[in-house]
């Protein structure tokens, strides 16, 4: 298999143009940290964007940064941290390959969204402009460098979570956000999942401006390390901001809605949220599903799909369901998620399974036809990550 590692956007465009001409397909990747994400596909070549690296412009006073797609996520975050800023969507690396670094391009293309999704949005809400190479080797730009822009179609939304199936991004412009200190967490022990999720939904609907809402049952706690010994489950609400503000909000919330809750403002709290973001409880799971459902449907989803281990984030709106050998079929999971008004994605499984089952939720015929026509609008020869999301697209 040919591996192309262009050192400029023009070179990347030439690689794609040549491949399009010859009808050769290309897998798009940075360092390959997310190779296991999406359907497993075989291509004649790999377009590796890891050499398109570096920060192009960072304007802290405008809260905007423009970076090349292959820049390691860590490098971007380190540059932002120096100016006391961050990416508000909490991009976890989601890396499955030991040693493979996540890049900013891959992170956005995979639609990564952390625990703050409920309040501050996901990658889609923070990508405000980009440059890319389409499937014909044509370079185009979309969006802009200002936060409020409705000039032309909002292609950054389409770019986030497109898994490289439409175009290869070469440059990304992202919103930055003021960084906050270590979070304070409000912790409730031993609620069952229905009670826990109900409390989390109350937190989302309250004026206390919490930024994280998760429910962690015992099996997941075990995998996080010897945490909260004896607890059957933890229901955790996160507050961020100045120390004074966090204390006031945690106290106010506890008094109003959770008098028995304990407050943790230390390393434990910070580590918990970070490890959940990095999917630490699921490091060894053979099959991992990611479900996005209406938050109130979370308990029912768990009842229907009885996972071996799970974490409910986004007040129940995001469910990570892990299975060993005895997993429900992909059809069952998709059907349950659909019936509850949400959707599922097979997040991790063996190559064979990712080749043979629906990894992304099936859509109705009209939506699939539209998806196919959009693919053609960017990549008429169908050479960019073909089949990564849906067979034949």
């Amino acid at each position, binding site marked *: 298999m040919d591996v192309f590692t262009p050192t400029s956007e023009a070179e990347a465009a030439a690689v794609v143009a040549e491949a399009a001409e010859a009808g050769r397909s290309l897998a798009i990747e940075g360092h390959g940290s997310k190779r296991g994400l999406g359907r497993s596909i075989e291509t004649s070549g790999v377009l590796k964007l890891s050499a398109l690296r570096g920060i192009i412009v960072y304007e802290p006073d405008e809260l905007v940064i423009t970076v090349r797609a292959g820049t390691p996520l860590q490098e971007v975050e380190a540059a932002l941290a120096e100016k006391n800023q961050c990416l508000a969507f909490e991009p976890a690396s989601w890396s499955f390959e030991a040693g493979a670094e996540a890049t900013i391009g891959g992170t956005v293309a995979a*639609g990564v969204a952390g625990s703050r999704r409920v309040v501050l949005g996901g990658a889609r809400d923070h990508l405000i402009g980009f440059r890319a190479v389409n499937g014909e080797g044509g370079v185009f730009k979309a969006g802009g460098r200002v936060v409020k822009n409705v000039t032309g179609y909002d292609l950054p939304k389409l770019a986030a979570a497109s898994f490289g199936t439409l175009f290869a991004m070469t440059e990304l412009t992202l919103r930055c956000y003021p960084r906050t200190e270590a979070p304070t967490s409000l912790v409730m022990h031993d609620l069952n999942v229905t009670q826990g999720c109900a409390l989390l939904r109350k937190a989302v609907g309250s004026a206390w401006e919490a930024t994280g809402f998760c429910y962690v049952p015992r099996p997941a706690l075990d995998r996080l390390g010897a945490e909260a010994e004896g607890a059957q489950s933890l229901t955790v609400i996160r507050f961020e901001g100045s120390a004074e503000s966090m204390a006031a909000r945690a106290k106010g919330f506890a008094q109003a809605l959770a008098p028995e809750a304990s407050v943790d403002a230390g390393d434990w709290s910070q580590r918990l949220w970070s490890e959940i973001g990095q999917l630490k409880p699921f490091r060894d799971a053979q099959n991992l599903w990611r479900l996005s459902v209406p938050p109130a449907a979370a308990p029912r989803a768990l009842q229907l799909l009885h996972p071996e281990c799970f974490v409910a984030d986004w007040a129940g709106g995001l469910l990570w369901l892990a299975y060993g050998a005895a997993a429900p079929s992909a059809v069952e999971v998709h059907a349950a998620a659909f019936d509850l008004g949400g959707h599922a994605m097979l997040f991790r499984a063996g190559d064979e399974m990712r080749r043979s089952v629906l990894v992304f939720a099936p859509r109705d015929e009209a939506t699939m036809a539209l998806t196919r026509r959009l693919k053609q609008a960017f990549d008429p020869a169908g050479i960019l990550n073909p089949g990564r999301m849906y067979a034949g697209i």
Partner: protein
Amino acid sequence: MPEANKDVLARRPALIEQLRRLVPDGVIADQDALAAYDCDALTAYRQKPLAVVLPRSAEEVSAVLAFCHREQVRVVPRGAGTSLSGGALPLADGILLGLSRMNRIREIDLENRCAVVEPGVTNLAITKAVEAQGFYYAPDPSSQVACSIGGNVAENSGGIHCLKYGLTTNNLLGVELALIGGERIRLGGKAMEAGGLDLMGLVTGSEGLVGVVTEVTVRLLPKPEIARASLAGFPTIEDAARCVALIIAAGLIPAAMEIMDRFAMDAVETYCAPGYPRDAAAMLIVELDGIAVDVASALGRIEQIARASGAVSFSTSNSEAERTRIWAGRKAAFAAAGRIAPDMLCMDGTIPRRELARVLGRIREMAKDYGLPVANVFHAGDGNLHPLIMFDVMKDGDLEKAEKFGADILALCVEVGGVLTGEHGVGIEKRDLMPLMFAPEDLAQQERIKCAFDPDALLNPGKVFPSLSACVEGGAMHVHKGRMPFANLPRL
């Protein structure tokens, strides 16, 4: 606009009769009655449509679209007709598809913090329906009393509070869309994410060119514990602009930051006497919301920054009544400016915040050169300018002069790294300026998306894109780079 299709015009009586069968009591064809629909809020452009069709249900929308597709009749969707960019300007050979009768709130689901509404529901009606329970819908365009949520989705509308809460696109959970062939698709729902390509994100802000919104699920937010506004007066508008850039640079994200210049302040003083500072050349309103302790500490820092930026006055609301008073003049600014001059053009470029002072200075010079007064009232926090160019359409050449002035302002916005429109949309107004911001290949890529949704260019043609395109059946397409000389050819 695209040249009218003579064949369609000739078939008008038969088409109207068939439309009446699809939407009984919902077709307006009388010439006098059509006059009420000949423009949106960009009143300089007027055109009566072939007919107005007012469906009552998604099924009717779908049937009308399928019919128009079969008969190759163009369709211009319209919500409440409040577009400032001519997004709902009718076509002589096209129907105007008005969604105003689809105005029911279908469901309020506070457990999932969302509301499911029909497209004709007004923006403010959503908040009104949930405020007693302590919730609201965040995007608040100034036309929120009248503008519809379907139109908000089509235009990706903003408002005063986008700085903290985002535009429409950041506050949606689901959209049901009717395609030109009559198919209806559901994008998203009550879950945070929809899976697959983010088609909802693409559809939001597509200005009626890809489909017709038949249902919207919006995210509701809990009402903040407190909101307080500060009012600062500055010796120059540049000082006010610098203060805004410094507040952002300090890591503060207020709920809103609005600047008004002396001209606008005088206009509102005559109009509703809000008591704004008399000795200042410009004023800045900063609103903060959240919990009381955060708001108080942020306001303290903002006062320091404002004083350091040369503020000659600074006051902060201590009650809801005081806050309302601070906003009263700002909210009346457009109406007040409308009293001063017979006609007004409202521009909408966004620029990097640090360029505010320079660009405002340049606009003042241009106003002298053009001999047309400009009032500045704008969303300074996100760099979204709204220069109001005053003119008199009855005066020979005034409209052309005003439009040229507006185009120069937008060219300047792009030159300093900004964009043509921050929240009003491209529509007809800024269509021909698109090449200032996008290269032909950028526009060609966007037009291919249009083709993927609407290969026959029947949905709102003539808006957004300046160049001529043709989509070829079967998916493959040729994009010709026709430019302005072909002004009479069909446009997408």
